[in-house]
């Protein structure tokens, strides 16, 4: 149970959708299938050829043995026939002296011949060479050669090898050839059994010499399955060995694979025609089909090696593909956690590189935007501080109060009252209860009080004019944007001019926008000065301390970049500043607003 859990855990941890896994699995599967398929095909093809070869080889060996045996047995058969002819020719077998000589000659032609003898049907010896006394208890009528000759009168009979116990000589292993023949005994025609015994040694040696690998051997059986020759004959009789003869008896020649005793053996069969014996070659498959095994072993190791190589290449390739993506993923994870500082640089496949490049671009853009936001926030705070300062405007207050003191000393009471009244109104609007946005009407009022104070201070050195178009008064505007510009016009334009100055402040509707125009007829400015002014490098060292640039910044911060100041100026001709603002109407009537 525990093992099962471990196994299932293993499979769960194995993300099949990982690119690496997907690539590895698919290519390994394909290559493995291909390699296995090719190996199997090759193996079958080659092993079949090897097997055919082995069978062919075996067949040739056995064929050779068969040819030798047929020659040998055939020769013996000829001798038997010769003997039979001479027996037939003899007129009186028991007493024919010439026959002795003839049979003796025949016997001497082949030293393998042990004896030639003619027996009556009752088993009594008629004539035989060599002439030796018979043994007792031979039971020859019960012996196979005698019985089969009686049973098959027409044909020549071959027995399996047996011990010849007929004559008082050595006991010898012989193969008996026998046939029922007719012979003349004292002019009477009788039937008897002619037997010729051949020493088995030649056949035995011939069979022993056959080499079929280390373990292989040859054995010979007769047509009914009696063993003629078998190297392990004794073991078979003792029941220690078993030779599967049944299928062998069904073949006259041919070969097949025998697995009856668990071991694969190639059986090849040939028939020795004169005797009806079967030569059976037994070769062990593990010796003869080594090619097949070697091939199998080779293919196995090849398969294994191929698999290892494929695995390594696969892991490498898939890692090459998947690793950059994973690194990218980790980088993105870092960004996700808020680390925008790190640059992602991922090398690898082209696509991944491109992806990382784009990702870097995106990251840089985000970083820029964030920097911008921070900058803007800082600027906003700064300009708000500036506005706060402008609201208090201490320099202007000090100058004005100075003028008032002087006017009071000179007894110009009316001017003192006007100045103080305007100053109070000026500051009241300046503060506007801390609001940033005020109606245009208030802004114009603010600048009007400023101009009142300044005309008194500058002893009517200039005139001014404030006009507002219909519908502009209740529009909303940023506060304290007109005063710095007017202050600028006075200090840089009018003050330096010898002529009587003029300042005009106008509010008007231009299309969808609200426009303020501040005009003066002062010394004017060169283009260079205007640029400096707008970039903030030229600051009016005036009372308010709130420069033109501050006005520009505040407008663009509050309303956007498309809104702001526009200067038109010619030296000695005067300057016109146009302020472009969005048209935002207040919802409340002026009275109510005042109350609040």
């Amino acid at each position: 149970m525990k093992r099962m859990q471990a196994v299932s855990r293993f499979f769960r941890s194995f993300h099949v959708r990982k690119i690496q896994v997907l690539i590895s699995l698919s290519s390994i599967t394909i290559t493995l299938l291909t390699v296995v398929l090719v190996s199997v095909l090759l193996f079958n093809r080659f092993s079949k050829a090897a097997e055919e070869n082995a069978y062919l080889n075996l067949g040739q060996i056995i064929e050779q043995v068969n040819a030798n045996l047929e020659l040998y047995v055939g020769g013996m058969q000829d001798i038997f026939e010769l003997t039979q002819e001479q027996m037939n020719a003899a007129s009186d077998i028991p007493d024919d002296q010439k026959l002795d000589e003839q049979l003796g000659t025949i016997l001497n032609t082949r030293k393998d011949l042990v004896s030639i003898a003619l027996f009556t049907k009752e088993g009594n010896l008629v004539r035989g060479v060599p002439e030796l006394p018979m043994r007792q208890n031979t039971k020859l009528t019960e012996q196979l050669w005698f019985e089969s000759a009686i049973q098959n009168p027409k044909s020549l009979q071959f027995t399996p090898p047996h011990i010849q116990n007929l004559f008082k000589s050595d006991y010898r292993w012989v193969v008996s050839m026998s046939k029922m023949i007719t012979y003349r005994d004292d002019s009477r025609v009788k039937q008897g059994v002619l037997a010729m015994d051949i020493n088995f040694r030649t056949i035995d040696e011939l069979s022993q010499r056959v080499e079929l690998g280390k373990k292989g051997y040859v054995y010979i059986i007769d047509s009914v399955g009696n063993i003629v020759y078998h190297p392990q004959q004794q073991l078979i009789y003792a029941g220690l060995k078993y030779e599967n003869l049944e299928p062998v008896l069904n073949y006259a020649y041919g070969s097949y694979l025998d697995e009856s005793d668990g071991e694969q053996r190639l059986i090849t069969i040939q028939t020795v025609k004169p005797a009806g014996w079967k030569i059976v070659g037994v070769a062990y498959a593990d010796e003869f089909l080594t090619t097949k095994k070697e091939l199998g072993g080779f293919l196995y190791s090849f398969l294994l090696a191929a698999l290892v190589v494929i695995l390594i290449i696969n892991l490498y390739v898939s890692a090459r593909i998947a690793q950059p993506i994973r690194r990218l993923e980790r980088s993105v994870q870092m960004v996700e956690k808020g680390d925008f500082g790190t640059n992602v640089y991922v090398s690898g496949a082209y696509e991944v590189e491109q992806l990382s490049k784009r990702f870097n671009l995106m990251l840089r853009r985000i970083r820029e935007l964030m920097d911008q936001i921070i900058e803007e926030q800082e600027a906003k705070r700064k300009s708000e501080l500036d506005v706060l300062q402008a609201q208090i405007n201490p320099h202007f207050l000090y100058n004005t109060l100075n003028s008032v003191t002087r006017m009071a000393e000179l007894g110009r009471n009316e001017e003192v009252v006007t100045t103080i009244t305007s100053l109070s109104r000026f500051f009241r609007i300046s503060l506007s209860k801390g609001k940033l946005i005020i109606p245009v009407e208030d802004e114009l009022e603010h600048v009007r009080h400023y101009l009142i104070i300044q005309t008194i201070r500058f002893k009517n050195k200039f005139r001014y004019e404030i006009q507002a178009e219909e519908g502009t008064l209740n529009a909303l505007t940023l506060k304290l944007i007109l005063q710095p510009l007017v202050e600028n016009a006075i200090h840089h334009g009018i003050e330096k001019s010898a002529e009587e100055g003029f300042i005009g402040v106008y509010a008007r509707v231009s299309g969808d926008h609200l426009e303020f125009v501040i005009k003066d007829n002062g010394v004017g400015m060169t283009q260079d000065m205007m640029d400096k002014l707008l970039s903030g490098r030229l600051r009016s060292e005036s009372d308010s301390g709130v420069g033109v640039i501050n006005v520009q910044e505040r407008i663009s911060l509050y309303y956007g970049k498309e809104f702001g100041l526009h200067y038109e100026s010619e030296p000695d001709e005067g300057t016109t500043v146009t302020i472009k603002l969005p048209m935002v109407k207040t919802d409340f009537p002026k009275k109510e607003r005042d109350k609040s």
Partner: protein
Amino acid sequence: MSLVHSLSKGLLIMILLLPLTSSCAPAGNLQKGEQMTVIDMIVKMDRGDYWSTIKMGAEVAAKEYNVKLNFLAPENENDYKEQIVLMEQSISRRPDAIILAASDYEALGQATDRSSYYDIPVVSMDSEVASTKVQTFVGTNNYEAGQKAAERLVELTGKQSDIGIVNFVKGARNADQREEGFLDYVARFSGIRVVDIQYCGSDEELAYRLTRNMLTNYPSLDGLVSLSAESSIGAGRAVEEMGYGGKIMMIAFDNPPEMLELLQEETVQAMVVQNPFNNGYMAVSAAVKAARGEKLEDKIPTDTKLIDLENMLWPENQKLLFPFVK
């Protein structure tokens, strides 16, 4: 996804199994380059049908089991000193196993013990040896062989009879066991008397003389048993020459050609035949197993056969009686 999943599982199993299957392949390949097993076979004598047949059986097994067989024997059958020397030489060559047919039960014991010191398994064959280090004994069940002889002799002579025994060496293990088996069997019959036991010391001539004496001393003898090849040849000759053939029931041991002739002439009624071919074969196959370290039975007995005129020409007995094609 499930397809990919099952595919991946299948593949994984294949990958896991592959080393297993491939590990079988080299094992199969090993068989080809398998080392030959070297077995020294030390027997009592390098001559005679009995030992030649053992050698033949051993060689058949050697071929079957891919064995390099060294067949060693002293000049004379009872030269146990020479056998000890052969044993020492063999141990110094460090064969994979030794098969020993000890000429002397006690004398070869020490040499056999020494082989175990070098981890050379010893299989004792034909005759046992006094050593506990022996892996197994392959050989004739001599006691049973003695009983077989007795059983047949009692059948032939009847339950009231006098019996003489010609044995080979008193104190030789095989001789004692055969005699014991024989005596134990006849002891069941009160009417049977074992009147004489002679020991010929594996000498045909002595056996002949001893048997003559026995026949002279006990002319009313009904049965005679000779318990080895040599004693059988001698005893058989004595019985034949003294004209007792067919009158005294005789059981012989082993199958020298002389005895077969006597069997066919009915001087000898039956003989107990060992199977030396099988002994040789089984000894080698047991030695191969011992060399591989397999556990063997204490004794691997090989059968004896009682051969008489009736069955001597049966095909399966012919090969046993005449192991050589001459």
